[in-house]
């Protein structure tokens, strides 16, 4: 029974709980056992089984009293970028070792208020900076998928790699992620799950360790479009503690899954046919187009002319914002303090020099450089201007179409250790996800097929600002057509 319980989708588990077929305690025990049995994957930095089981019992009591909330008793994994009260929150960095926040992030608080419970905190690239999860101070995370006939350990993508692996390996029914340039969508594609970044402003950023504030957005990762819709509804909502949180009603996202896309206009951006993209990704994209057409959607070619400049723009803006945001890690108020100093300035340098890993240092140096005197206009202001042009490309496209369909990533998951000596090659992973991040648009990635060597490949749907419903509705149709049922090597053994 335990194995079966962890293979339910979040929505199935919710319905089973409502019918009384299973208790929250049983469901949580099954997931705690699965989490403990999969420690070799390194997807969790901290496990909180006692708290999870205690909360599950309270959930069962609530349900017995007729007071069940929308996510009552459903066990989730939380990316270790969300501050969780009294539970160590590290952002995958040595510099925050031992930090136990005295407060709870708004997004996680909203999930708990709706009845969900936490299994533990998941691994991630340090400060969410990475596309492989290999930059974590706590070590890389292993993807539960393997290439056919090949035993190499693969990355789950990043930065939300621990959350992606936890969901793909059936250790949690769903997870939270954050997406700055693709950190939800790319790992979702690499691990064969569904992940959604909502419109910038939908989810409060309060209590989420900041990377690049004009880009960071929280979102759900789960095993179906419906599960993402359920989680997203609980995660969204206005928060006065985040000045960029929008004061708009939160729709019933699950109700948007009508399965009807007749007459929907789908854009196919020609600039996303990048050089060197594999044949199988191109044909999967064509397959996606055919599925939507067969369901009655109208497909149109569109142009997003500044696409090729999105990555270099991102790698100015994100590091610039990071260099400012990460100035707070000074060894005074929280986290680890370095050693070997004689004065305050040396104390800062020692703390930051030993507390941050190489990728974080690289980005802090880039950010500091592009903001420094003499370069501010040439780099930072130029990037902000190009960002305006990228956003305008989308605005124009959305005068003609309702959603945009693209591949999620230019390749399937790669081996642990690959691309580590070439930062730019690593950055190219996010070529299809970064443009929508710069424009603040909602996007979803869902598993749509397998590569020739048996790895999951994702398709991405992008929507108009605050039109998550159309994105989810189209994704639901693609999901049904793709009928993706393949299981990671680890679970089919």
């Amino acid at each position, binding site marked *: 029974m335990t194995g079966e319980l962890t293979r339910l989708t979040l929505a199935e588990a919710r319905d089973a709980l409502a019918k009384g077929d299973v208790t929250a305690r049983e469901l949580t025990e099954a997931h705690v056992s699965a989490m403990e049995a999969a420690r070799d994957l390194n997807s969790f930095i901290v496990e909180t089984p006692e708290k999870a089981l205690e909360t599950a019992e309270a959930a069962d009591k609530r349900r017995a009293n007729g007071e069940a909330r929308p996510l009552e008793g459903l066990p989730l994994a939380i990316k270790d970028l969300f501050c969780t009260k009294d539970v160590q929150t590290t952002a995958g960095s040595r510099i925050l070792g031992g930090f136990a926040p005295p407060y709870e992030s708004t997004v996680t608080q909203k999930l708990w208020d709706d009845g969900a419970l936490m299994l533990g905190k998941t691994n991630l690239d340090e400060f969410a900076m990475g596309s492989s999860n290999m930059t974590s101070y706590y070590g890389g995370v292993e993807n539960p998928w393997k290439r056919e006939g090949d035993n190499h350990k693969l990355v789950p993508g990043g930065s939300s790699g621990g959350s992606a692996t936890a969901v793909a390996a059936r250790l949690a029914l769903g997870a939270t992620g954050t997406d700055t340039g693709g950190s939800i969508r790319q790992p979702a594609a690499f691990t064969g799950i569904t992940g959604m970044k909502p419109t910038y*402003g939908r989810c409060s950023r309060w209590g989420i360790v900041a990377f690049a504030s004009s880009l960071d957005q929280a979102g759900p990762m789960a095993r179906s479009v419906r599960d993402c819709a359920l989680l997203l509804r609980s995660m969204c909502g206005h928060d006065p503690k985040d000045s960029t949180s*929008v004061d708009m009603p939160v729709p019933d996202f699950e109700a948007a899954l009508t399965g009807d896309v007749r007459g929907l206009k789908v854009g196919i951006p020609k600039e996303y046919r990048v050089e060197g993209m594999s044949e199988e990704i191109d044909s999967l994209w064509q397959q996606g187009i055919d599925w939507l057409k067969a369901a009655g959607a109208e497909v149109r070619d569109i142009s997003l002319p500044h696409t090729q*400049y999105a990555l*270099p723009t991102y790698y100015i803006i994100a590091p610039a914002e990071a260099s400012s945001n990460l100035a707070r890690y000074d060894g*005074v108020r929280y986290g680890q303090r370095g050693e070997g100093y004689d004065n305050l300035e040396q104390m800062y340098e020692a703390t930051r020099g030993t507390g941050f890993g190489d990728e974080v*240092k690289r980005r802090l140096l880039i950010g500091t*450089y592009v903001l420094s005197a003499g370069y501010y206009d040439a780099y930072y202001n130029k990037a*902000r*201007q190009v960002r305006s042009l990228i956003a305008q490309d989308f605005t124009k496209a959305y005068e003609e179409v309702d959603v945009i369909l693209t591949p999620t990533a230019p390749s399937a998951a790669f081996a642990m250790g690959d691309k580590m000596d070439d930062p730019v090659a690593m950055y190219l992973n996010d070529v299809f996800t970064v443009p929508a991040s710069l424009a603040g648009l909602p996007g979803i990635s869902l598993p749509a097929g397998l590569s020739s060597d048996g790895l999951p490949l994702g398709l991405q749907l992008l929507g108009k600002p605050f039109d998550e419903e159309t994105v989810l509705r189209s994704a639901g149709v693609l999901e049904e057509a793709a009928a993706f049922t393949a299981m990671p090597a680890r679970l089919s053994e």
Partner: protein
Amino acid sequence: MSVDKDTVAHIAKLARLRMDPEKTEAMAGELSQILGWIEQLQEVDTEGVAPMTSVAQMKLPLREDEVTDGGYPDDVLRNAPESLQGFYVVPKVVE
């Protein structure tokens, strides 16, 4: 644009990052590679384009300037590497 070891040391100073001198050379190479790649933005015509300042088209909300939170110094200080009698402790800065 390429940066040399001394430039890296200077930026590292600005960013308050103690750099291992052996790593400065390698970092200069990596940063040069990244900056060279970023350089392609210069070919985009941005004449008269306003820099993006906000993703969402919204006015920043204002509120009354009043105390809405606080009064728990122990919580605030409990993650500090070193604290004493309700204060953070740092190396002496005034002789």
